[in-house]
């Protein structure tokens, strides 16, 4: 076991990122898909903060993370509003069943 360094954090971040994508792809429920997106955003945030700390880049990274959290909240609000709307029109929130628009 080496000293905990940047790579450890990056590894966590990569895992979160990939799990996020995996979740987005595999989950039927639209809300679960949103959760996947949140995971991705979190993984990026870990990156930002880890880089800021280990690269001694100042506060830009933390600033960015802060903004991203705010954006994530806004996005969640909008996305949920849309999901609710979908539920009203389709009576389901299963993403794979919502495919009237296709070739």
């Amino acid at each position: 076991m080496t000293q905990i360094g940047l790579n450890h954090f990056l590894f966590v971040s990569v895992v979160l990122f990939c799990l996020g994508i995996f979740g987005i792809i595999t989950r039927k429920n639209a809300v679960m898909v949103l959760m996947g997106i949140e995971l991705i955003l979190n993984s990026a945030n870990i990156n930002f903060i880890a880089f800021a700390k280990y690269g001694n880049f100042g506060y830009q990274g933390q600033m960015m993370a802060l903004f991203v959290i705010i954006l994530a909240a806004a996005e969640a609000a909008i996305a949920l509003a849309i999901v609710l709307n979908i539920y009203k029109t389709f009576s389901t929130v299963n993403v794979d069943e919502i495919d009237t628009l296709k070739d």
Partner: protein
Amino acid sequence: MTENLLIQFAIIILFLPLLGFVVTLFLGSKVKKIFLFENFVLILAFILSVIMVFAKLNYYPQENIVSEFHWISLNNVPLFGTLNIDLGILVDNISVLMIFVVTLISMLVHIFSIAYMHGDKRYNRYFAYLGIFTFSMTGIVFTHDILMMYIFWELVGLSSYLLIGFWFEKKSASDAGKKAFIVNRIGDIGMFSGILILFSTYHTFTFDKIFTQISLGVLPFNSEFWLTVTGILIFCGAIGKSAQFPLHVWLPDAMEGPTPVSALIHAATMVAAGVYLVVRVFPILTGGALEFIAIIGALSAFIPATIALTQNDIKKVLAYSTVSQLGYMVMALGVGAYKFAFFHLVTHAFFKAALFLGSGSVIHAMHHEQDIRNMGGLRKKLPLTYATFLISTIAISGVPLTSGFLSKDGILAGTFAFGSLTGQWFFAFVGFFVALLTAFYMFRLVILTFHGEPRNKEKFDHAKESPFVMVMPLVVLAALSIFIWYTPNPFNPEQGAFLSKWIKAPTIVVPQNARYSFMKNDVIKPAEQVQTAKPKTEAEITFSESYTEAMHHAHIPAMLLSLTLAGLGILLAFSFYQWKKLDPDKLANSIKPLYKLSYNKWYFDEIYQATFVAFTLGLSNVLYWIDTYIIDGIVNGSATVTKQFSKFSGTFDNIVVDGLVNLMATISGFIGLMFRRLQTGKVQTYIVVVVFSLVIILFLFKSF
């Protein structure tokens, strides 16, 4: 009468029939009697041509009067210099004599047709067509260059097409017209290729200028071989037009046209144009080309003669006889008997026209019955027709006191002389043998038609002598088949002005070593030549003295032999058909294969059909996988190679060429479909695709 006036006469004669054509065609449906105008025009043309012949032969017996103009001027062409395409009129002895023949026969046929065609629903149109034909033929005669020759050459083809197919309601007639035109075109392609070679070498079409340059040693592709080829190619035109072997198949079919037309076009004038062409280009023909011409002529003389022996259609017999006689002329040219070839052209024109018109008279009387097996005994009903027909038959058989005897004998003498000079007796043999055959089948025709008992009583009873306008031309033409017009001595044509003064053998311009040996200038050392420096007559320059001598010697034996053979032929004919001493059927049975060969016209049509179809079969087997269509077509065995091949290329176009294009379209569509497959409407699929494409992109770019 100045030279200029002659030219003007020529131009008037040339355009008068055209005027007649235009007027008759456009007023044809409005004015019933307009055909009279056409007749008038022709009579006028004939009168002018008589004046012209007289003037030319009397006042300018030696001159070649030329008048030309720039038809097209290409000005100063890069690399070439000035390039003009001239058309012009050449008035020399040959052309005036020929024009006399043409206008005379044309006029007679016009007159004959007034009665013969009476009642036809396109009466005026018929005369219009005759007008355009006469115009075209006149053009051929007067031309001073090969381009104009070709132009009018095609125009006679057109008029021939129109006239053969005049009764186009009959399928056989329209078929025959088409066949004539297309078969002629085959020859014309050769001729045109020859013209291409000439023009690309000499940059002119004018005969004189070409001759001059050849005599200066300018040769196509600098090779005598190509000069020979050029000669042969140009002769191809004659093969087509004069119905020579192997393109003779159209002429018998052409008998579908009205009989006067057959007389005018397919016996007297147009078919003779081929011979006239060879006469015109004679100076550039090398020994090789002449030999080729002679062989074609010999075959054409022989094969149709054998066919004519067994035919039962009166016009078909005459048609094959025409081919055979044309073969004679061509052969004569090939062996160098230039003068006699042209002579025979003239004499043949008259008696063959007479024969055809006579047959027309018979057919008219028999209400369009053409089969001689249904005739017989018409002598009594149609005395004038019979008389004229008989005279012409005697003439064609080569019996003394006729023009035919004179000219034919000359040709035979020519082949004889050729044999003695070169050792090739083939042509002489063919010539004499065909003379025998000719006499036989012609008399067979006469006997079966006019002698004996009528075999079709009903038609016989209705038959009556034709009206004056039909008989008059017969009489005129028969009269012209007598020797007296040509020579005072019925046994020596050379004594007449026709051969001694009017017609001169032309100067051969091809290089010495490309000529027949006997056409070489006599071995006179250059130095002596300068010293002697006497003005040479044309004959001397053309043929060596040895030829003149051989010709002289050949005369008598040839005459005797031909007389004997003609007599034998006539005798045989009489014994077969008149006296019934011999049974033709028995003979036919005993040599069945030969008989059948002759009766079926040597299977030429069938061979052409079969070879092409067979060829197509082979081709189609290879291409079976492309198209089963072709197989069907051939199994049905309906078409010739061209039709089949065109069908093939038509489907090729549809399936392969168009198919490729459609394939492109299909592929495009398929690509589109592939892209569509991705657009499932499920957002998660899209994301999978995005992830995968990201992976691919990263992999791709990692290698950079």
